[in-house]
């Protein structure tokens, strides 16, 4: 079985369902829209900020503020791409056509990941430039140290979030269960664990907390995290690898 055949097949699958278009569009619109809004509000508030806040003001990171909500749409995309197979019964037809389950899973994830990366990078660059336009005199330039890394990192971050969701959905199979766990986790629980001082040391190793470090250009004054931007992205990549390995092992073992 040639992997290129399976990749073409998975591309046909992904482009022929409506959920792909609306989840990815929502991720783009929410991330950019909210990024612009928060950038504009931050510019107006800048003069009222404390000296400390002004010193650690990170215009690049501010323009990515929409990602906290936009990532939820990426999670929905990642979950649906995989669990649609199970909820519709298509998985039996798919595995009868491609009995090499490793090839099947790898092709599906490769195609979805490629699409996410393109959408993620476009979103990241657009939200950066529009956000900076809103920030006026407080803006950062793409050529400033660390900025290009942060902007590309934003697209990679969105991609990794979607990949992690694909792995979790492949393990759990049910779209409702997967969304029911992932959405509150990334929207609420991770934020709570990362901001309450008692759990902060654990919370910052969670995939989104660690991964979002790549989008920071100015390190906050009281920051004591034990990893830098690349270290954080590495931690997130480990989470993704763990989810995908779990997905592969279970898919190999289970009856379809």
């Amino acid at each position, binding site marked *: 079985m040639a992997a290129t*055949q399976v990749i073409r*097949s998975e591309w046909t699958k992904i482009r*022929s369902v409506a*959920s792909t278009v609306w989840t990815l569009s929502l991720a783009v619109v929410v991330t950019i829209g909210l990024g612009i809004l928060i950038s504009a509000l931050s510019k107006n508030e800048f003069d009222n900020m404390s000296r400390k806040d002004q010193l650690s003001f990170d215009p690049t990171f501010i323009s990515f503020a929409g990602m906290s909500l936009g990532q939820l749409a990426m999670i929905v995309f990642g979950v649906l791409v995989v669990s649609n197979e199970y909820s519709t019964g*298509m*998985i*039996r*037809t798919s595995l009868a*056509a491609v009995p090499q389950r490793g090839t099947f899973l790898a092709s599906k994830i490769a195609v979805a990941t490629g699409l996410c990366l393109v959408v993620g990078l476009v979103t990241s660059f657009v939200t950066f430039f529009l956000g900076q336009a809103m920030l006026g005199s407080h803006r950062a330039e793409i050529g400033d140290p660390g900025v290009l890394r942060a902007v590309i990192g934003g697209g990679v971050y969105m991609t990794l979030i979607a990949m992690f969701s694909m792995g979790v959905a492949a393990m759990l199979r049910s779209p409702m269960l997967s969304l029911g766990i992932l959405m509150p986790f990334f929207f609420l629980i991770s934020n709570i664990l990362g901001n309450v001082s008692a759990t902060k040391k654990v919370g910052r190793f969670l995939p989104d907390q660690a991964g979002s470090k790549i989008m920071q250009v100015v390190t906050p004054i009281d920051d004591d995290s034990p990893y830098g931007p690349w270290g954080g992205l590495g931690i997130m990549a480990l989470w993704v690898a763990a989810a995908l390995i779990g997905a592969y092992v279970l898919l190999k073992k289970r009856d*379809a």
Partner: protein
Amino acid sequence: MIELAGLTKRYGEKVAVNNLTFTVRPGIVTGFLGPNGAGKSTTMRMMLGLDRPTSGDVRIDGKHYDQLKDPLSYIGALLDAKAMHGGRSAYNHLLCLAQSNGIPTKRVHEVLDTVGLTAVAKKKAKGFSLGMGQRLGIAGALLGDPRILMFDEPVNGLDPEGIHWIRNLMKSLAAQGRTVFVSSHLMSEMALTADHLVVIGQGRLLADTSMADFIAQNSRSYVRIRTPQRERLLDVLHAAGVTVVETGNGTLEVDGGKSEQIGELAAQHQIVLHELSPQQASLEEAFMQLTAESVEYHAHSDAPSEPQPAWGDAWKGK
């Protein structure tokens, strides 16, 4: 050709498929018969490598399913008509299957035409009726022009026209020399399509026989007679050593295929016959007898032991 050797599937304590060994041969329609819950679908899923056998082995043309390169060109299967994404169009559903096995796009149009779905090719599958879904599933099975075809309960829920179409399709596929394996829980359906019969009950093999042999062995054939000269005929037949059974409604039945003999005897003695017809007991009965011990879910046909008082009887008597 599909070969099963000692195929067994256990779910915890429950044995769904128990040591099945049989071969599905090319050029004929093989019926796979068993009551609901007998393990037919589980067996078929194991044939396709979807479920893993607890022990035993299935081989498709001598190979394990996952060793087949482009499996759709070896074996096409319709397991469940709803095993597709409802939001995808019929054309795209078939296209993604075709691409995964390196089948040219032109073949997608051909199979859509074969099953009569060309007009709705761009429509989403969730709007399809059961019959249309079944046709789309069959189109998927035919896609790789495979030598082996497998259909799980293909006529379930279809209208008479759809049933007729599927029967003819299966026969013509077998006539082209292909292996056709079709499951059903209806003996009457199998009697019309299958040349060979594999019967299972509670996961065990109960029969592996040609349809003709099964009919010969399992169906009682007898001759039904009606005559206005009942007593005379009884005497004549008795004298000739023929055993006659009198049925309640005035007809006589003679076991075995002896209508010629009875007709000649009646003619010799100038007895008028109103009916002299060879009859076959239904195959459905034979099948039910065969699987009687292995039916998983028995329905209780006994009437309630006491008639229930009609509503209101209790206070009417006061």
